């Protein structure tokens, strides 16, 4: 039986609230289909009322700590996994770094003969050793920067034996080389190596002694000259003026003035 569509909503509301409006009541008086519909809806509402009642057994929601607090556990597990990964990675790295060291053969002893000769001029440590002496303990007498042209001589004279380099004494009693007495005047006059090879520019200069010996500029004194030449230079002091001047010019031309800044200022 078709109900009146116009009163459809009103029928539902009437069934819900048991409150029938006057207009609907008038319609129900004349419409049996809507009356039947209202009865069915009221019955359905009874059923809904039954369903509205809470069921006997209502489960209690699980406490939150066991269900909702999942993130602290997840965070803890994540941290543990991350730490484990980092630990394994560090262990692998350490193992890889240690492995080649274990397999490496012992490092060979490099003797001076096997070492490459220095290609460039640079600071060289001069080790003065008497090769024929039984004592082989190296004695560093002086350190200086040797000019390039003297490298070869230095190497010829002072190439230390492997034993000396390794500081292993061969003789029962190692003896130190006698250190020559330092006499700046004598060294200046002779300008020769006293014991083996002593670079001239390694010799400390006593300027007072130099001025006492001669009136020559400091540049002359620093220049290596033979004793004979030095004697001649000294004799120039008493020679006639012309000869002295000419000789002085000759010597002066042969000398380098760069070592004397004062002379450079005088002769720019």
């Amino acid at each position, binding site marked *: 039986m078709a109900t009146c569509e116009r009163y*459809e*909503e009103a029928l*539902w509301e009437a069934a*819900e609230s048991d409150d029938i409006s006057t207009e609907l009541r008038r319609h129900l008086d004349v419409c049996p289909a809507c009356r039947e519909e209202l009865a*069915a*809806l009221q*019955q*359905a*509402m*009874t*059923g*809904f*009322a*039954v*369903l*509205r*009642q*809470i*069921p*006997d*057994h*209502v*489960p*209690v*929601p*699980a*406490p*939150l*700590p066991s*269900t*909702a*607090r999942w993130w602290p556990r997840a965070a803890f597990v994540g941290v543990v996994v991350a730490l484990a990964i980092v630990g394994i990675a560090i262990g692998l790295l350490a193992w890889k770094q240690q492995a080649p060291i274990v397999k490496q053969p012992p490092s060979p002893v490099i003797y001076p003969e096997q070492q490459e000769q220095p290609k460039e001029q640079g600071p060289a440590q001069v080790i003065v050793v008497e090769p024929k002496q039984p004592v082989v303990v190296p004695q560093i007498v002086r350190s200086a920067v040797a000019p390039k042209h003297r490298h070869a001589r230095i190497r010829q004279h002072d190439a230390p034996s492997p034993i000396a380099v390794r500081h292993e004494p061969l003789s029962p009693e190692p003896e130190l080389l006698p250190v020559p007495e330092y006499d700046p005047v004598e060294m200046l006059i002779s300008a020769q190596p006293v014991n083996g090879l002593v670079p001239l520019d390694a010799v400390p200069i006593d300027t007072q002694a130099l001025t006492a010996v001669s009136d020559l500029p400091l540049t002359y004194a620093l220049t290596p000259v033979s004793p004979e030449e030095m004697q001649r230079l000294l004799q120039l002091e008493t020679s006639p003026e012309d000869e002295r001047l000419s000789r002085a010019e000759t010597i002066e031309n042969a000398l380098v003035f760069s070592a004397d800044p004062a002379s450079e200022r005088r002769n720019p």
Partner: protein
Amino acid sequence: MATGTVVAEQRERQLIARARAGNTAAFDALAVDYAPRVYRLAVRMLGDAEEAEEALQETMLRAYRSLGKFRGEAAFSTWLYAITARVCLTRKRAAKLRPEQVPYEELRIATCDTAEQMLRREAGDRVQRALNALPPRDRLLMVLRFVEELSHEEIARVMGWSVENSRTRLLRAKRAFRERYEKEMTDGDL
């Protein structure tokens, strides 16, 4: 009565505030308060006590996780119903292929042997069967309106629709229900 309602609302507000601050005990109290209604909706929607229980737990879990999104514009019950509705619809969709079986013994109210109560129980069973035959969304609308007794505005909030849209859809659901219910009555008479 009004004073009791105000006190209850005040208590609920305090519990919500504490729960939002991270107090799980406060949320547990809220869950215990609302569990019967959530469970009822789930049972009417899903038609299975066990599944309804699972839906109840899931609803409470989701509610706790998204408690920060609750702004208090709607009632807490409405907000909770919305979560329950979504959970139930998702579960219905997952169990779409399963045959609809309603364990009436479990859904039944405390039984009495009086004739009147027998009639009421039968009416309830008939309505439940008619509801079970409805599409999930129509069933949800009918349960929200006639079991949970939500207003059109509240239904609109729960479903996320406009009030007009909610009215229109509810009217369609009523017609569908009426057809099913008519059929149930005819089958019962036979």
